[in-house]
């Protein structure tokens, strides 16, 4: 318990630091950039040696319906956590929809293999505790690159821990429970990596992939907190071009 309190205290202090520090030139607060870049390099090595070959192999030996089925099962297993977060975010419609979705897909969808709920008007909601904290107004804190898990920030890393605690499968006791939990993590990692094959190739084609990932992750999370809606005034803070352009035209 004391360790939990210490961890929460450390997380909150990093968040507090974030609110008093200026973000970097690209708008993301990354005081641990040196460390993060090291972890990013490590993750790339692991990815190249294990995850990417597994993802490509998985794609090669399966067809799309099979991969969709696996992805649906994993998504269905997340629904209790999604439900808890919709409640914490005060979204009763999404909460009820998530319960309905879970029940329909678990029964008629044969354990979640088939997503019957979406065409029935119960779309998937993607909520986690990092987003819940964001909805509550908690600052994202310092950008973090987590070993094996990839890009995150203090708020989302803390949220990841809470989501794990909220997940019934974390606590369920049954024969082979440890194997099931490990299997879910492994299959989940390969499935996500397979879904991201093209995106990761695009990322690696960028001039500075670390910066591209850092910006993209941060902006995507902000958009997720807004439930995919554009900012109220998305063009308010666009930079001006006047400092750079039209000098030649004006001189003409």
């Amino acid at each position, binding site marked *: 318990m004391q360790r939990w309190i210490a961890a929460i205290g450390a997380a909150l202090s990093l968040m507090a630091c974030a609110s008093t520090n200026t973000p970097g030139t690209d*708008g993301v607060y990354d005081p641990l950039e040196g460390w993060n870049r090291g972890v990013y390099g490590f993750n790339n090595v692991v990815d190249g040696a294990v995850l990417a070959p597994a993802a490509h192999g998985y794609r090669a030996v399966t067809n799309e319906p099979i991969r969709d089925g696996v992805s649906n099962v994993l998504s269905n297993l997340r629904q209790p956590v999604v439900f808890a977060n919709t409640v914490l975010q005060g979204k009763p419609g999404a909460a009820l929809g998530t319960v309905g979705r879970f029940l329909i897909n678990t029964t008629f969808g044969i354990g979640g293999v088939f997503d019957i709920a979406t065409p029935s008007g119960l779309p998937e909601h993607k909520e986690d505790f990092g987003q819940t904290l964001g909805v509550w107004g908690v600052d994202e804190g310092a950008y973090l690159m987590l070993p094996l898990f990839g890009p995150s920030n203090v708020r989302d890393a803390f949220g990841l821990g809470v989501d794990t605690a909220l997940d019934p499968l974390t606590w369920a006791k049954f024969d082979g429970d440890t194997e099931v939990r490990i299997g879910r993590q492994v299959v989940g990692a390969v499935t996500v990596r397979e879904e991201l094959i093209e995106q990761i190739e695009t990322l690696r084609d960028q*001039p500075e992939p670390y910066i591209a990932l850092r910006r*993209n992750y941060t902006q995507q999370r*902000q958009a*997720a907190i807004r439930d995919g809606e554009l900012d109220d005034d998305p063009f308010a803070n666009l930079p001006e071009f006047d400092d750079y352009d*039209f000098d030649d*035209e004006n001189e003409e």
Partner: protein
Amino acid sequence: MTSRKWLIAAVMIAFSAAPGFADTQTEEYVRANANDVLHSLNAGDLDVDGRRLAFQQYMDEFTNLNAIAKFTIGKYSRRFTPEELEAYIDSFRTYSLAVYEFYFNEYRGRDVEVTGSIDRNAHDSIVDTQIVRADGQKLEVRWRVLNRGGKYQVVDVALNADGNLIWLAIEQQAQFIAILDKNNGSADALIEKINGMTADLLAQRDDT
């Protein structure tokens, strides 16, 4: 309120709302030119080199690549020597044209439809468009258009990824400046990086 005051109030409200929308000329500028660009990649009467040349000419007319080039290096646009700046802009232009050709190729021959617009101010507008790919997938593209002395030019393009607007020039600026910061502002380091990426793109180019 008298009927005259009502009329004045209504006119004032109408005029105060008007600047929120880009004028039809700006929208038409984007619609016509974006369509020209996409159709140039599909011109059946030209060979590959001819199509590429037409595409590049349209892009040069449609966008202000020199301004974008300088914008993407931010403060370094004033720190580079004139020779470095010229070499960088050359390199950037080649890279940008290769990037745009690579990505627009998926939409070649398709129609660009204007779906809305908004003025940031009298000379700076955002025009929203939609392009439908051959497989039915829709792409939302927003074009930032500046009007300088009656001459319109596109300076940035945004894609909407689940509520996250990704402005291409702004993303490039963040990455280019990071490269320059890491290399003590070396123009050569950035140019070498850009030329490497251009070579990769050209190697993947679809020459059909």
